C-alpha cells in the first residue's frame, strides 16, 4: 500500500497531514497561513484560508504537470517568392489553431497564472503521423482545409507546420491562490468540497470542486483536469434554499445541507454533465433536529444532526443518489468526512479528536466502531514528566482512561501480546446537545480524560456565550468571531492569537498552554479524500508509543530497510546460537542412530480431474502424493491420480522430479491447476485437476511446489540470473537457467525448464543480472522485488516469509451489449436469429450478462458496479455505442447510414488481494519498465532504469542500485507524444515505441546524463505500427501490432539508430532480448496435440554474432503465457566442444 495522507485543520487554523506510514501529524509548509477548511484529493488539497480565499496545494510529484501548447504556422506558395507568409485574403491567419478558425500567434499564449512557468521556447514539431519530416517540419497540401503530406509535390500550394511549447505547473507543495480571472466569486467562501475523480476515467483526471459562499450560494469550479489543476471558471448553481455545507463524493454523489436543516441531493451528475441538473430535497433523519453536516462517498452518505448525532444513509448508489433510509449510529461528532474507499473520518464533538471508523468494508459500509487517531504532532513533545498517565488519558481519548491505563502498564510489564482492543476508543453517547446555529447553546469541550488522569493540568475551557449576532449568524467558521467574543466576554485570558476555527460548534479556546502545545491536539476539520486506506490497511496511528521510543520507532518505520530488520541483534543471536547448538550437540554425533526412521509419507485427497479421453469432462478421482527420501537425502515423490475407466480402476502418475511446472488455471467456478511434464508440454495437454475448495487447492499447490523444488534441490529466493515469466492470470513464475540453456549447438530444450511460482500478481516483470526486478500490476502500480520467495498460497508454509508483503491488483472485466437496428423501433435488443447474444463477450460467441458474469476466479472480488466503458479503441458516441454495418466488423464511434448494428462495452472492476515478495513504488503508475542488462564484466554502480507512465511519459529512475533496487525518484524525459514501450540495452542504448507506432532511439545516454539528450526517429516497418521493443547487447527486436517480429539492421557504434527493420517471424506477442542477445518470445498459434495454444514461451535457436536473427524456434511452456524476461540471464554457455565444431559449418566458429 503506497503511503497517502490524511489532512486536518486544528482549531487554530494550522493545517496538518498524517501519512499512512507515519505516526506523527506533520505541519504543512507555508506555516504562516491559517486555514478554515481543507478538502483533499490524492493529488492535491484545496483549502479556504483565513482570508476566505481558496488556495490549492498540488502535491509535488516526479512527474510534472505539463501542458503542451500548439499553434500552426501557415504559408502559401506564390510564383515570385516561393512559400511566404503572405496568404490570400480568403485564407486562414498566418498563425492559427489546427482548424484554421482561431487566430493564435505564439505571442498570444499567456501563462494561466503565476503558478506556471514555460519550459522552453517555441520549437517546430518534426514528427508527422509517426514519420519524421524534413528539418523545418513543413507539411504540404493543395489548399488549406485538406490532407497534408510530409513531402512537397508539384501541386503543393500551401504548407503549414506545428509549433510546440510546454508550460509546467511550478507551485507544487505550496498553497497557491487560484486565479480569479474571468469570474471571480462575489462573496467569501465558507465551505468547499472536492471529488468527482471517478466520474470519468484516467488519464484526464477530472476533479469537481464545489464551494459554498457565506451567503449560502453554491458554486461549481469547471475545467479542473490533471493538466489544469486550478480549473478555469466558476459556475453559479441555482438552489432551492441557502446552503451551509456541501459534500461531493469521488463519484456522482453531491449532497448539501440547507440552512433550515434539510438536505438537498444533486441529480443528473454524469460523465457528460459534471455539475448535474437539479436538486431534490430530503428531510432530516429526525423531524425536530436539523442536519448540520453531511459527507458523501461513492456508495455512502453520513450526516450529523445539530445535536451531534451520527446518521448513516442506507441504499445510496449512483442510480439512487437519495438512498432509502437513515440509520442512527453511535458517537457524537462535530464534523464528518468520507474519504477514499468510503472510509469515514470524524471529529469528536467533545474531545475534538480525529476518529476513524473502523471496519468499513464494501459489504459493511457502516463499519463497526470509532477509533481515535492518537498520532502526535511534529511540534509535540512526548511527556516525560507526566508519565504514561496523561498520555493514556490524552492520546487514547478514552472516556474511561483508567482501564486503558492499566492495560498499558500491564502490557509493558509482562509484554504479553494482549494489546488488541485496549486502545479502541469507545464513544459513549451523552446528552450534551450542541448546535451550531443557535448562539445560545455552545459546545463545551470537556477534557474529561485529562481530568481523570489526575495530573496538574485541570480543564480550563470555559463555556463562552457567543455574542456577535451578525458574525455568528453567518458563520461557524470565521476568524473574526473569536475576537468579537473575546471583547465581549472580557474575562478570558490574554491569549492574543486565540482564534477559534471551530468548524461547526463555535467555542473559544482559553488557556491555550494547557492544550495547544502540550495537550492533545484539538481538531476542527478533517479530510480523507487523499487518504487511501481500507479495512485491511495496517495503520499505526491508534496507539502512539510514548517517551523516547517514539523517535526510535518513527525512525525505524521510516527506514525499515531489509537488512536492518533482518539483522536485528536478537535475531542474529538466535541464528548464531542455533548453529552453535548444532555444532555442539549434533555434528560430532552424526554417526549415532536416529531415534525415528524416515519412511514414506503419503498425502491423499479427492479431486476432480479433466479426463484424458473424449468427451472431456471433470471426473472424481483420488489424488495422492507419496514422498520419500532419495539416496542422497534429497526428497523425491510420485504423484498418483486414481480413476475409474469403464468400471476398471486405473491410475496415472508423474514423478515429482519430472514435473516442470504447476500452474493455477483461471476458472470462474472451480479451483483448478495444471501439472506439466516435458512430455505434456509438448502435447500441450497437462494433468488438470480441481480441488473442492480454494484452501485445499492452495494446500496442494504449496505442498507440491515445495516438494518439486526439494526433489530438484532448489531452495531460497530466485537467483539473479533467473528467467521470470507471467501467465495471463497474473501469476509469476521463475526458472533457474543453466549454462546449457543457451549452449550451441545443442541447448537444453525449453520444455525441460523447471518453473516455480513466486507470490504476487503482476502483468509485466523486468529484471537484470544484478538482481533488480521490477513489476507492474494490472492496475499499473509499480512494484519492486523485495528478495523473498513466499507469499500467495505459500503463506505460512515454512518458506521464507521475510520480505513478503500484501499486494493488491485491480482489473476490469468487460462485457458487450449488442443491438440491431430495425425500421420500426430503431435499435433494440432483438437481434436476428443468427446474431450473437445481445449480451456477450468480445467475440460474441459466449453469452455474458451483467448478472451471470463472475469475476475471473474466486480470488477476485467485485469492487464496482457495471459501468459503460468509453475508452474503447475506435471511439464511442455519448452513450458509449460503437456502430458497424454488421457483427463481426470494424466499429466506429458515430452512426452512419450504413450501420445496422451497434455495441457498447461495459466494464466492472474487480480486486485481488494477495501476498508476495513485492513492495510498491508509488506514486506514478507505469505501463512499461526496463532495466539495464548488466553483463558480468560490466561495472555499474547506479543502474539505469527507464519506464513509461500509464499516461505515456518517459521516465528515468534515479538512484537504482543493487542495494536500493527501488531507487529514489523519477526524472521526467521530455517528449512530444505519448509512448508505450521502452527498452535499454547493455551499452545504455535506449529504444522506445511511441503510441503512434513509431520507434525512437535516445541519444547521448551516459552516466553523467542518465536521461540522455535527444530522440532520433526511426521510421517503422512499412505500414506496420510497432508496439513493443527489446534491446540486448547489440540486437534490437520489435513487435508490431499484427504480431510480426522485426530485427533492426545496420546498428553500429557510430550509427546506433541502424538502418532498417528486417522481418523475422510472425505470431509473436512479446519479445525479450537478453544480455548476450538471447531472444525469447511469447508466441501465439503454437501447434499442440489438441489445439493451437496462445501465449507460449519460445526460445530462438541458432543465434550467434553472424546470425543475430537466429534460425528457428524451440517451444516451451504455454499457452496462457503473457510475459517473459531473460534479461537477467548472464549464464555463459559452455564453449563449443570439438565435436560440436565439427558438426556445424565453419561459420559457427566465428561465434566462439
Amino acid at each position: 500500500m503506497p503511503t497517502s495522507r490524511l489532512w486536518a485543520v486544528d482549531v487554530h487554523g494550522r493545517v496538518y497531514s498524517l501519512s499512512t506510514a507515519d505516526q506523527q501529524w506533520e505541519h504543512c509548509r507555508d506555516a504562516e497561513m491559517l486555514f478554515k477548511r481543507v478538502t483533499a484529493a490524492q493529488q492535491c488539497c484545496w483549502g479556504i484560508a483565513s482570508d476566505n480565499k481558496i488556495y490549492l496545494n498540488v502535491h509535488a510529484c516526479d512527474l510534472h504537470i505539463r501542458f503542451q501548447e500548439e499553434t500552426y504556422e501557415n504559408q502559401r506558395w506564390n510564383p515570385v517568392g516561393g512559400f511566404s507568409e503572405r496568404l490570400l485574403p480568403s485564407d486562414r491567419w498566418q498563425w492559427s489553431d489546427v482548424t484554421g478558425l482561431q487566430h493564435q500567434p505564439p505571442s498570444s499564449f499567456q501563462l494561466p497564472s503565476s503558478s506556471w512557468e514555460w519550459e522552453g521556447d517555441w520549437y517546430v514539431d518534426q514528427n508527422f503521423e509517426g514519420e519524421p519530416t524534413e528539418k523545418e517540419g513543413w507539411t504540404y497540401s493543395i489548399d488549406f482545409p485538406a490532407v497534408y503530406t510530409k513531402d512537397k509535390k508539384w501541386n503543393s500550394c500551401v504548407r503549414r507546420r506545428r509549433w510546440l511549447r510546454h508550460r509546467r505547473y511550478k507551485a507544487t507543495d505550496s498553497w497557491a491562490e487560484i486565479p480569479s480571472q474571468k469570474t471571480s466569486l462575489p462573496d467569501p467562501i465558507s465551505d468547499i468540497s472536492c471529488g468527482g475523480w471517478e466520474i470519468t476515467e484516467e488519464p484526464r483526471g477530472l476533479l469537481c470542486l464545489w464551494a459554498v459562499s457565506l451567503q449560502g450560494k453554491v458554486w461549481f469550479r469547471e475545467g479542473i483536469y490533471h493538466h489544469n489543476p486550478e480549473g478555469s471558471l466558476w459556475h453559479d448553481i441555482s438552489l432551492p434554499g441557502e446552503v451551509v455545507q456541501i459534500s461531493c463524493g469521488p463519484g456522482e454523489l453531491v449532497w448539501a445541507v440547507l440552512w433550515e436543516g434539510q438536505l438537498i441531493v444533486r441529480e443528473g451528475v454524469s460523465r457528460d454533465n459534471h455539475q448535474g441538473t437539479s436538486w431534490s430535497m430530503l428531510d432530516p433523519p429526525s423531524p425536530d433536529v436539523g442536519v448540520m453536516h453531511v459527507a458523501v462517498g461513492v456508495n455512502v452518505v453520513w450526516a450529523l444532526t445539530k445535536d451531534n448525532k451520527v446518521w448513516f444513509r442506507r441504499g445510496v448508489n449512483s442510480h439512487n443518489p437519495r438512498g432509502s433510509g437513515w440509520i442512527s449510529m453511535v458517537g457524537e461528532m462535530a464534523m464528518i468526512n468520507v474519504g477514499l474507499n468510503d472510509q469515514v473520518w470524524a471529529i469528536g464533538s467533545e474531545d475534538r479528536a480525529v476518529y476513524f471508523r473502523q471496519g468499513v468494508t464494501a459489504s459493511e459500509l457502516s463499519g463497526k466502531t470509532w477509533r481515535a487517531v492518537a498520532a502526535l504532532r511534529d511540534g509535540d513533545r512526548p511527556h516525560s514528566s507526566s508519565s504514561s498517565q496523561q498520555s493514556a488519558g490524552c492520546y487514547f481519548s478514552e472516556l474511561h482512561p483508567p482501564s486503558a491505563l492499566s492495560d498499558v502498564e500491564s502490557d509493558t510489564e509482562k509484554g504479553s501480546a494482549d494489546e488488541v482492543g485496549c486502545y479502541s476508543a469507545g464513544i459513549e453517547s451523552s446528552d450534551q446537545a450542541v448546535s451550531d446555529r443557535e448562539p445560545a447553546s455552545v459546545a463545551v469541550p470537556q477534557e474529561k480524560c485529562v481530568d481523570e488522569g489526575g495530573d496538574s493540568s485541570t480543564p480550563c475551557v470555559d463555556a463562552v456565550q457567543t455574542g456577535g449576532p451578525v458574525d455568528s449568524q453567518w458563520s461557524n467558521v470565521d476568524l473574526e468571531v473569536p475576537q468579537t467574543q473575546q471583547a465581549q466576554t472580557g474575562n478570558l485570558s490574554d491569549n492574543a492569537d486565540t482564534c477559534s476555527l471551530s468548524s461547526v460548534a463555535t467555542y473559544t479556546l482559553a488557556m491555550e498552554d494547557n492544550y495547544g502545545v502540550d495537550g492533545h491536539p484539538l481538531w476542527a476539520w478533517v479530510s480523507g479524500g487523499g487518504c487511501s486506506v481500507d479495512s485491511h490497511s495496517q495503520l499505526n496511528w491508534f496507539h502512539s508509543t510514548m517517551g523516547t521510543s517514539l523517535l526510535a520507532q518513527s525512525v525505524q518505520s521510516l527506514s525499515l530497510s531489509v537488512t536492518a530488520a533482518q539483522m536485528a541483534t536478537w535475531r542474529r543471536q538466535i541464528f548464531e546460537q542455533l548453529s552453535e547448538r548444532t555444532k555442539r550437540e549434533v555434528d560430532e554425533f552424526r554417526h549415532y542412530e536416529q531415534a525415528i526412521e524416515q519412511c514414506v509419507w503419503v498425502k491423499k485427497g479427492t479431486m476432480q480431474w479433466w479426463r484424458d479421453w473424449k468427451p472431456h469432462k471433470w471426473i472424481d478421482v483420488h489424488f495422492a502424493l507419496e514422498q520419500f527420501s532419495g539416496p542422497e537425502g534429497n526428497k523425491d515423490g510420485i504423484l498418483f491420480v486414481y480413476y475409474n475407466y469403464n468400471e476398471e480402476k486405473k491410475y496415472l502418475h508423474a514423478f515429482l522430479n519430472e514435473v516442470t511446472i504447476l500452474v493455477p488455471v483461471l476458472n470462474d467456478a472451480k479451483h483448478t491447476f495444471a501439472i506439466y511434464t516435458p512430455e505434456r508440454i509438448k502435447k500441450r495437454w497437462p494433468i488438470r485437476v480441481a480441488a473442492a475448495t480454494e484452501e485445499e487447492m492452495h494446500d496442494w499447490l504449496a505442498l507440491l511446489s515445495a516438494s518439486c523444488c526439494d526433489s530438484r534441490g532448489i531452495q531460497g529466493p530466485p537467483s539473479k540470473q533467473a528467467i521470470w515469466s507471467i501467465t495471463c492470470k497474473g501469476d509469476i513464475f521463475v526458472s533457474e537457467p543453466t549454462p546449457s540453456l543457451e549452449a550451441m549447438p545443442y541447448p537444453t530444450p525449453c520444455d525441460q525448464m523447471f518453473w516455480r511460482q513466486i507470490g504476487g500478481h503482476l502483468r509485466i516483470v523486468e529484471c537484470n543480472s544484478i538482481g533488480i526486478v521490477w513489476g507492474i500490476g494490472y492496475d499499473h502500480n509499480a512494484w519492486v522485488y523485495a528478495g523473498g520467495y513466499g507469499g500467495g498460497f505459500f503463506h505460512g508454509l515454512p518458506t521464507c516469509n521475510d520480505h513478503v508483503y500484501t499486494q493488491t491488483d485491480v482489473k476490469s472485466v468487460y462485457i458487450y451489449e449488442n443491438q440491431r437496428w430495425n425500421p420500426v423501433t430503431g435499435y433494440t435488443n432483438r437481434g436476428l436469429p443468427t446474431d450473437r447474444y445481445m449480451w456477450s463477450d468480445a467475440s460474441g460467441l459466449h453469452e455474458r450478462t451483467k448478472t451471470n458474469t463472475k469475476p475471473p476466479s474466486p480470488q477476485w472480488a467485485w469492487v464496482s458496479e457495471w459501468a459503460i466503458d468509453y475508452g474503447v479503441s475506435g471511439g464511442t458516441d455519448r452513450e458509449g455505442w460503437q456502430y458497424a454495418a454488421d457483427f463481426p466488423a470494424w466499429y466506429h464511434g458515430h452512426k452512419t447510414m450504413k450501420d445496422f448494428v451497434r455495441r457498447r462495452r461495459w466494464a466492472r472492476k474487480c480486486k485481488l488481494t494477495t501476498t508476495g515478495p513485492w513492495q510498491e513504488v508509488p506514486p506514478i503508475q507505469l505501463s512499461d519498465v526496463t532495466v539495464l542488462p548488466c553483463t558480468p564484466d560490466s561495472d555499474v554502480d547506479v543502474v539505469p532504469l527507464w519506464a513509461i507512465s500509464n499516461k505515456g511519459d518517459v521516465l528515468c529512475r534515479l538512484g537504482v542500485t543493487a542495494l536500493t533496487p527501488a531507487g529514489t525518484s523519477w526524472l521526467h524525459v521530455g517528449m512530444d507524444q505519448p509512448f508505450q514501450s521502452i527498452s535499454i540495452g547493455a551499452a545504455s542504448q535506449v529504444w522506445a515505441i511511441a503510441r503512434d507506432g513509431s520507434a525512437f532511439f535516445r541519444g547521448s545516454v551516459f552516466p553523467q546524463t542518465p536521461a540522455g539528450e535527444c530522440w532520433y526517429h526511426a521510421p517503422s516497418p512499412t505500414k506496420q505500427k510497432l508496439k513493443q521493443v527489446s534491446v540486448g547487447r547489440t540486437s534490437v527486436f520489435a513487435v508490431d501490432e499484427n504480431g510480426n517480429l522485426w530485427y533492426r539492421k545496420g546498428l553500429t557504434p557510430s550509427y546506433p539508430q541502424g538502418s532498417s527493420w528486417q522481418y523475422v517471424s510472425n505470431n509473436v506477442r512479446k519479445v525479450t532480448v537478453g544480455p548476450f542477445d538471447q531472444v525469447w518470445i511469447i508466441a501465439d498459434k503454437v501447434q499442440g496435440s489438441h489445439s493451437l495454444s496462445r501465449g507460449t514461451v519460445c526460445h530462438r535457436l541458432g543465434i550467434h554474432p553472424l546470425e543475430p536473427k537466429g534460425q528457428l524456434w524451440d517451444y516451451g511452456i504455454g499457452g496462457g503465457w503473457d510475459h517473459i524476461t531473460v534479461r537477467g540471464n548472464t549464464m555463459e554457455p559452455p564453449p563449443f566442444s570439438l565435436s560440436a565444431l565439427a558438426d556445424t559449418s565453419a561459420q559457427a566458429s566465428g561465434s566462439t
Partner: protein
Amino acid sequence: MADDKDVLRDVWFGRIPACFTLNQDEETEREAEPYYLLLPRVSYLTLVTDKVKKHFLRVMRAEDVGEMWFEYEGTPLKWHYPIGVLFDLHASNSILPWSITVHFKNFPGQDLLHCMSSSVVEAHFMSSIKEADALKHKSQVVNDMQKKDHKQLWMGLQNDKFEQFWAMNRKLMEYPTEEAGFRYIPFRIYQVNGTHTSTPLILESSQGTEKRYQVVIHGIEPLMETPLQWLSEHLSHPDNFLHICVVPAPSD
C-alpha cells in the same frame, strides 16, 4: 543462516546425542551394552525409545520387565516434557552424550505419569495444542480443523516429518493481519526444582550483579529483547507452547 524458515528447521531437527545404560539393579541374563541414539529435542522420550526398549529386552527375562522409565543422575525424567526441555533443565552443562539410565522396575508413580502406549503421548500432545490455541485464537483454529488435520500434526511429530507437520501447524501460527499477534502467548516456564508454571515470574535484572540464571529455550539463550510474538512463532515446540527453562548459570 539466512531466514526464519531455517530457524523452524533448526528447531525441528535439533537432536541430542544420548547414551542409554541399563540400571545396575536390573536382573539381566547377560551384560547389557549401552545404546546410543540421537533424540529429537522436540519429541517425547516414550515416543522415540522403542529401539532402546527392544535393545534391552533382548538381555532380560520377560517376567522382570515392568514399565520402562528413565532417570538422569537420580532424577526420574518426566516423559511428558519435551526431550529438549529435560536436557536443558537437568543436563545442559554435562558432557555429551547425555547419559540416561533405563529402569524396568520400581516405577516412581509419585514422580512420573504412566505411559503404556503412544496414544497416551498423543492425547497429551493434542491437549497441549488445544490449550495453546485456546490462548492464541480462542480455540478457533484448532476447532476448525478436521480429525485428519489433527492426525497430520501428530503423525508429523511421530514420524519426524517437518513438512507434514508444518503444512498444518502453519495454520496455528497465523493471526489476523489487523491484529499484531496472538491473543496470548502460550508458554511454560521450568525451574530446576522441577515445577513448571504458566504464570510469569520476575527475573532479577542481571545489571551490575553477576548473572545467576540462564533463560534457555531449545538449548539457546535468546536475548531478552527478542519479540515474544516472534519467539512464539519460531521457537515454540510442536505442542505450540514456548518451553522456557530457567537454570542456574554455570558457576565457573
